């Protein structure tokens, strides 16, 4: 038996919060050889433009918010898919006073929790110049007082939701290392349980180097995951969204993170009822994509009501696509497809409704290993129905081979004896007594319960109990009413005797596997119950 933990909601979303430093230090000019003079904030805006453009093309379903901060913070653009609005906001930023990172991070917590709660993973892109403020509210001050926090003014990191914190520094490494800025920023990542990374500009501060820094962020965090979904000869190019995270099976013996294949091969289908609701590492949308002849992506296959359908979308929607066939079939048949993600790593494809009208093809990843779902047994042992001697689902589809029975039953399924609480012991003794009073009708149950108690008492070395119960049975014998069946007295005496022998602990009578059997009497022939 398992306890299942889950939640409901928009799982395939991984929103981004861009947190932009608009303190005065961001207006420091950058010495460029060319004619135009840039400030650091211009470089930052340039990088973010690049990020937004990339997302508008590849992550159009994703939500992004823009926060600016100095000593105060402000939500410039709430979560949106409209990258034009975000872009516009970038060009409308004013300059303010000093940097106060902690309050901005508190702001991010509030914004994300309000919009998405605590379960949706969120990427936070912090853009700053590495000047961490002065005095109260500066990052140095925040970190220095980190250990003196109470629950009410808890430091915002780690974020109270699954997160990655990417710090984009409008400064190069040498500049950051000349102060303790880099150390402080690294502390931030550590405080976020190591979830995140610091990016610095390689070489002189210029547009080209900012581009290459944001390029690295995009490669790391915003590269769409493209794969080929295969089922025999049927194939479809798909985007898996959000991109599956590498998974570490065992940090010690297998520390290399596992990444899923880009060939996702369907190996079979199984009823939803059989797979039940399995635990999964993550869930993803599987979106068909159209590739043109050169192999470039021309758009995702799903249409979004909020956006103009571009021609690529239209084409993608009209070419028969295996994804559509698969999705519809899974939905109609109430089945899931088992998909191979890598060596000894599987997942499942299924249809999930996100509203009454719309449903999506989804993929969930199981934990890597030969047997991720114990009730299905080893994945490699699942095979086609036609291979079975007789249909495991029955001719009328009225049974199922799943769940598989575990080899060793769990304690709750095997009638274990626990006498830690007196009530446990008392219940077991009373069961014997109750059946003793209904001899000979209950002969079988009487001896079954008696033997169970005997076994446990022997294992626990609780021989006094055997003596005590023997005494009790002897007393019961003397209390038998005149109307009692004569066999009752014989059985009680016999049972009491056997218990007493066992209580001596001599191996002959105290064998664990030995069972007390009913006494064969002249009367027992008339009894309907036999062992």
């Amino acid at each position, binding site marked *: 038996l398992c306890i299942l933990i889950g939640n409901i909601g928009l799982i395939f979303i991984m929103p981004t919060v861009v947190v932009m430093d608009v303190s005065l230090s961001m207006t420091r000019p950058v010495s460029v050889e060319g004619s135009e003079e840039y400030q650091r904030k211009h470089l930052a805006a340039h990088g973010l433009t690049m990020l937004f453009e990339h997302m508008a093309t590849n992550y159009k379903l994703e939500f992004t918010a823009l926060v600016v901060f100095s000593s105060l913070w402000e939500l410039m653009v709430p979560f949106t898919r409209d990258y034009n609005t975000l872009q516009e906001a970038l060009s409308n930023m004013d300059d303010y006073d000093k940097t106060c990172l902690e309050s901005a991070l508190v702001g991010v917590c509030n914004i994300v929790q309000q919009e998405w709660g605590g379960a949706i993973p969120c990427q936070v892109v912090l853009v700053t110049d590495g000047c961490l403020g002065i005095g109260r509210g500066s990052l140095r001050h925040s970190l220095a007082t980190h250990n003196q926090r109470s629950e009410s003014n808890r430091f915002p990191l780690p974020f109270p939701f699954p997160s990655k914190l990417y710090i984009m520094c409008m400064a190069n490494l040498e500049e950051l290392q000349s102060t303790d800025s880099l150390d402080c920023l690294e502390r931030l990542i550590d405080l976020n349980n190591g979830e995140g990374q610091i990016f610095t500009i390689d070489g002189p501060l210029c547009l080209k180097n900012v581009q290459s820094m944001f390029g690295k962020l995009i490669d790391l965090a915003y590269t769409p995951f493209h794969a080929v979904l295969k089922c*025999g000869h049927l194939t479809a190019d798909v985007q898996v969204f959000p991109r599956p995270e590498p998974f570490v099976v*065992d940090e010690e013996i297998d520390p290399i993170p596992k990444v899923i294949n880009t060939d996702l*091969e369907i190996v*079979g289908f199984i009823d939803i009822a059989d797979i039940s609701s399995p635990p999964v590492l993550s869930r993803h949308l599987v979106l068909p994509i159209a590739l043109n002849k050169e192999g470039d992506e021309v758009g995702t296959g799903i249409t979004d009501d909020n956006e103009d359908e571009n021609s690529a979308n239209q084409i993608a929607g009209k070419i028969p696509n295996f994804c*559509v066939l698969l999705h519809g079939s899974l939905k109609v048949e109430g089945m899931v497809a088992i998909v191979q993600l890598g060596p000894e790593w599987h997942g499942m494809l299924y249809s999930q409704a996100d509203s009454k009208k719309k449903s999506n093809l989804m993929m969930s990843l199981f934990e890597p290993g030969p047997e991720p779902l114990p009730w299905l047994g080893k994945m490699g042992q699942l095979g086609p129905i036609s291979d079975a001697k007789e249909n495991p689902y029955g001719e009328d589809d009225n049974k199922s081979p799943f769940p598989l029975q575990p080899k060793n039953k769990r304690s709750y399924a095997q009638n*274990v004896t626990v006498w830690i609480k007196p009530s446990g012991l008392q219940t077991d003794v009373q069961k014997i007594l109750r059946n003793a009073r209904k001899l000979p009708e209950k002969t079988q149950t009487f001896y079954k319960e008696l033997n169970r108690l005997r076994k446990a008492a022997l294992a*626990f070395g*609780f021989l006094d109990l055997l003596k005590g119960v023997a005494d009790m049975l002897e007393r019961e014998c003397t209390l038998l009413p005149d109307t009692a069946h004569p066999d009752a007295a014989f059985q009680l005496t016999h049972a009491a005797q056997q218990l007493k022998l066992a209580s001596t602990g001599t191996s002959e009578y105290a064998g664990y596997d030995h069972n007390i059997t009913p006494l064969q009497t002249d009367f027992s022939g008339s009894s309907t119950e036999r062992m």
Partner: protein
Amino acid sequence: MKIFSESHKTVFVVDHCPYMAESCRQHVEFDMLVKNRTQGIIPLAPISKSLWTCSVESSMEYCRIMYDIFPFRKLVNFIVSDSGAHVLNSWTQEDQNLQELMAALAAVGPPNPRADPECCSILHGLVAAVETLCKITEYQHEARTLLMENAERVGNRGRIICITNAKSDSHVRMLEDCVQETIHEHNKLAANSDHLMQIQKCELVLIHTYPVGEDSLVSDRSKKELSPVLTSEVHSVRAGRHLATKLNILVQQHFDLASTTITNIPMKPTFSVFDQEEQHANTSANYDVELLHHKDAHVDFLKSGDTHLGGSSREGSFKETITLKWCTPRTNNIELHYCTGAYRISPVDVNSRPSSCLTNFLLNDPRYKIDGSLEIPLERAKDQLEKHTRYWPMIISQTTIFNMQAVVPLASVIVKESLTEEDVLNCQKTIYNLVDMERKNDPLPISTVGTRGKGPKRDEQYRIMWNELETLVRAHINNSEKHQRVLECLMACRSKPPEEEERKKRGRKREDKEDKSEKAVKDYEQEKTWQDLERLKSILERGKEELAEAEIIKDSPDSPEPPNKKPLVEMDETPPVEKSKGPVSLLTLWSNRINTANSRKHQEFAGRLNSVNNRAELYQHLKEENGMETTENGKASRQ
């Protein structure tokens, strides 16, 4: 996560020396007075458990919870110590269950109070514990073999839980020193052995237990590092239920467990475990059941701030319990729930009636096991998918044969790896049947959806059908010689279309047109794609007023079924448009609807308006103009 953490190997060392036979001095009433028939009878004197019994049942409870939640990879080695060490089981998975341990303990029996205390010591057990920790487990062996040159990554850590009755703090220190010394020695031995592993980390948990009412001679001490390899902690605990509580706390700490209490579980007298004779038999009260499980199960609750913390649990275990309210499952509702984790559970109070009612309810369904074959079944499954998808049209209007009930007997067997004689016979029958249909000029379910006009002529329909059937059969001819025979039969039967003679009479003009349809057949795929584009376009056009976009997805279930299933669409072998008798098929309904909708959007084709019985003679003007062939430009093939 680390598989080979300290929790991988647990060694219990339980003292079996004479003093452990002493009573724990906590009485258990076992002769409970039963109402209305006990007048004048004095109940039997209460009994009490020995220190040994308390130690054994508490450690068994520890193991029970551990095995329930971690049936694999968490192993116990049980040792009892008196004049020597008795190792009751091994690290192998088969030895890891309560029955084995109980049987072994019964064989050992209670300590002998008359044995010579001088010969007996817990030290024998502790030495054996270190020795056993050096022994490699199946899991360690497997991991090492798998990792090959990285075998050193496989850790060897473990925990020794020693339950004894110590004399004093210095006695405890002596035991600790002994363990440290033994580890040192055995690690040296292990360094030169293939079968042994050096102990990297050992947690020693010393539990001093003594009768209730006595003063403890040993003081508690929290975990302390004695060496880089060894840590030790000392617990001084009264025997009886205090010892059981302590081990319950420890199992939760050692295996990162947490507690959840399921509240308000309805318990009706009809529940099978409910014994009618017991109290409350006729009441249907609600009960609470406390469960233990890995504490990760609580992470999401704690994160969401939605803590259903129900205060500390009743039995005084060390952590707070989270309460969840029982929801009776709606049994016929099969759907996937999003589940981030499934955690094995173990009831805290396993044989209390509420617990057993709950677990029995949850366990109550029939199970049996499936036979595995010698080959890897999953590979066979992939193989089967490969065969089934060799020819698989994606859209219903792309296919004729998968819309025909008459083809099913062939299509369902041709994908098999090998055919029986009976299969071949059935395939041949299917082909003959189709020939018969063609001779009778039976209509075929060629889709007219999205096409202008009423689709290809009857003889063209058959040509398309035969071509498609040939494609299907050809995709499988390499499976076996019998598949080859099916193709031979097919080729023989379709080689002489009956109307061929007649066609020759019709002369050259007609032949030109045939070339076009020949091309159409060749360009089958492209052509159908085009048709489909047309069709989808019409759906999309109407989408805003009539159909939600979901219809596009809904459409796909109409796609052909795997051939071994019944097709969803019954064709009745009647063409959609000319349909007049019998039950109306879904496709007919659909096509009629589309046709009606389409007809509203365009001017009716003149040919159809002038048709007689839905037949219009084409190229009537040619009759008059005699021999002008200028108008053909490919449109014909689209009809």
